[in-house]
């Protein structure tokens, strides 16, 4: 028999609530309740409680509800924001949200399999078939196109750019279509504690989530899809380790001079490594692109303070001028446009190898967020599973964060299905081991590569620059190797890890 209060549970409790309250909770647990609770008769006991209604959490619920084996599970969703505006998400074709992610073909295949992709507004999704990456210091470049993918390349698409809102809206519509999820939106998690031992039922290992509206729900399995500062992770006493990059990601929706050098049918993604961080320009439908510029917090603040014209000039300069020129432009209080125009005249570059010019920025889309590297020590605990950003936060330079979350969800849904069909309690750690084993090493490896790339390209001069340029040129010259990297990036590669 599991001890009533194991040392682990005591530790978990004490990390989440103060010592006094922990003691009080223990006392309460000793007082035996007399009411009988069963999953079927008690409306507040659930098989799965998911905290967080972002892409990872919603995908998990859609996956569980759409699979006949797991569709009998009783499921609740807790989300702090109201989901109503997301459900009815609608923007004119000339406007795009500034929070976009690239979805790999592997993520899209998963979204199709759970029946959510059909609700994605396809006219707002942009596939890209080529990816150009170059070194801002040495100019060495690598060009990934669909030819390198070989016969395994799916329809020649490397990835799909999509607004996060378009995805979450589609997932919500799919969940609404399937029904059977009790949605508690607009409600924050006020408290999580362990349940109590009664006469007939012992819920002392079951998490109880109290939401700001006052309702308390008990979970067989509590899923933390609640982001980088996950309350579920904190409750479980799982440490998340890592560091801040001292970098901010500046995002914006940009209007370009045209649909790109390859036209509507051959869109290209661009990424230039600058010593301050990579600047990426990813294609959206029509003549629009989305910007992700990772830079120092000071320069990010500076960029956000510029008027529209100077901001546009800085983005154009960021993809063209030398790091030395950029440093000077950043130091100017204003008037970047004239200075950049003059300097560009004296900088040689191949026009058709870099993105077309930015001509405008959509109002209200310039924003920034701090970049972090975090990895939880484990993704599972007793009656706990973490997915997405609650488990890992990655540098956005390869746009893998959301895709990693989709990979987590696919794996966790498969693990839950196995438990259900074999009569295992889906919440116990033994049942969740397969999920942790499958995802942890894979994410760790990818995150390590992303982190190393960031550090590699933060170097401004010396032998490292020469070596990394040599590396890029060498990879560019070797078709099969390039194909391998692309397949890994597209999530279609052989699982070698």
């Amino acid at each position, binding site marked *: 028999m599991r001890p009533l209060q194991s040392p682990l549970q005591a530790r978990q409790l004490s990390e989440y609530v103060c010592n006094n309250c922990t003691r009080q909770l223990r006392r309460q647990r000793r007082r035996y309740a007399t009411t009988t609770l*069963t999953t079927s008769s008690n409306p507040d006991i659930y098989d799965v409680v998911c905290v967080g209604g972002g892409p990872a959490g919603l995908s998990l619920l859609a996956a569980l509800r759409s699979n006949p084996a797991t569709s*009998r599970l009783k499921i609740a969703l807790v989300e702090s924001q109201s989901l109503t505006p997301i459900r009815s998400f609608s923007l004119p074709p000339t406007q795009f949200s500034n929070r976009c992610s690239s979805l790999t073909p592997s993520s899209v295949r998963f979204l199709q399999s759970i029946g959510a992709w059909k609700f994605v507004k396809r006219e707002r999704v942009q596939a890209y078939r080529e990816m150009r990456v170059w070194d801002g210091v040495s100019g060495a470049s690598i060009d990934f196109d669909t030819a390198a993918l070989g016969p395994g390349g799916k329809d020649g698409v490397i990835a799909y750019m999509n607004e996060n809102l378009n995805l979450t809206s589609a997932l919500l519509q799919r969940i609404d279509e399937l029904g059977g999820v009790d949605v508690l939106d607009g409600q924050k998690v006020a408290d999580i504690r362990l349940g109590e031992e009664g006469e007939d039922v*012992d819920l002392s290992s079951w998490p109880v989530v109290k939401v700001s509206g006052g309702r308390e729900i008990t979970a067989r399995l509590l899923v933390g899809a609640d982001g980088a500062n996950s309350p579920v992770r904190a409750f479980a006493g799982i440490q998340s380790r890592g560091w801040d990059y001292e970098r901010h990601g500046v995002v914006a929706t940009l209007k370009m001079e045209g649909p790109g050098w390859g036209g509507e049918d051959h869109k290209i993604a661009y990424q230039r490594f600058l010593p301050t961080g990579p600047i990426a320009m990813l294609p959206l439908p029509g003549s629009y692109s989305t910007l992700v510029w990772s830079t120092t917090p000071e320069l990010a603040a500076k960029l956000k303070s510029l008027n529209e014209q100077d901001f546009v000039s800085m983005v154009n300069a960021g993809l063209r001028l030398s790091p030395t020129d950029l440093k000077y432009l950043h130091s100017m209080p204003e008037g970047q446009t004239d200075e950049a125009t003059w300097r560009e005249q004296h900088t040689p570059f191949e026009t058709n190898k870099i993105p077309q010019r930015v001509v405008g920025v959509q109002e209200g889309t310039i924003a920034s967020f701090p970049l972090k590297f975090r990895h939880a020590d484990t993704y599972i605990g007793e009656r706990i599973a973490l997915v997405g950003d609650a488990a890992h936060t990655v540098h956005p330079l390869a746009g893998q964060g959301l895709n990693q979350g989709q990979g987590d969800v696919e794996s966790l849904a498969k693990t839950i299905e196995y438990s*259900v069909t074999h009569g*295992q309690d889906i919440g116990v750690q033994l049942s969740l081991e397969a999920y942790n084993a499958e995802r942890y090493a894979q994410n760790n490896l990818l995150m390590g590569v992303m982190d190393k790339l960031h550090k590699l390209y933060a170097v401004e001069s010396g032998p490292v620059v020469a070596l990394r340029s040599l590396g890029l040129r060498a990879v560019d010259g070797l078709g099969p190797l390039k194909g391998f990297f692309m397949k890994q990036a597209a999530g279609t590669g052989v699982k070698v890890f």
Partner: protein
Amino acid sequence: MAAITSPLQPTSLRNLALLLRTAPRFVQNQFRFQSTTSGPASSSSVNPTEVSHFNALASTWWDPQGSSRLLHLMNPLRHDFIRSCHATQPIPPPAAGLRYLDIGCGGGIFAESAARLHNTGLVTAIDPSPQVLAVAKAHARQDPGLSGKLNYLNSSIEGLPKPTSVEEQYDVLSLFEVIEHITHPAEFMDVCADFVKPGGWIVMSTIARTWLSWFTTKLVAEDIVGIVPRGTHDWDKYINAEELRGYFLKERGWNSPQVVGVVYVPGLGWKQVDGSEKVGNYFFGIRKDEV
């Protein structure tokens, strides 16, 4: 676990020993209870060594990292095996309300999992050891979803009232890691047979009587390493799949024998390996004639 890192072997010695240690070897005592008491076995019928052994075991029965880990890992394969038995039927079993009788249920690893399946109506799980059954009952309280579907009884099979109608009989009678501890398996099986519905199944898992099992369970586990008390296993009682097959098919009203050998592969867990039933752990299933 150290075994995880060791190379592939038919059945890891340590793991096999663990399996044996956790097996309900007191089941053999059922026959002794039978001669003196007709009701459920009382705690006094279990010898003191057994009691202390199972008391020690009780605290770790449900610890997935403890000595029962191998049993926990094997449990899903039991369901896969039962499913494969059902799949051989020309008409599939009913989609709901299946009745299970789990004999020698121990801490309830299989009984709980069977009760959780959506097509299960009722699981009756029996064990003659009150200590072990207390563990099973306490653990079942941790899952409110089991209430009403799982019934534990401190009894031997002989202590159960004989079914008087098909409704009282069971679709699946399970004997996991039990038969190798039974002194007179043929008589025991005959008692079990009355509890199975026409068209229902007896499913079991055990170890083959081979040079390998003698080596691992008798010589090494008991005599050399001593993780299993000497005399725990009577290697002569081990039964081979061929012998089970021969017994049931000898005009006793059974058909469709199913045999699947399983091997513990360190790092991968239990795997089905064709032909391995001849050397180590295996599942055996047999279907009662539909009259």
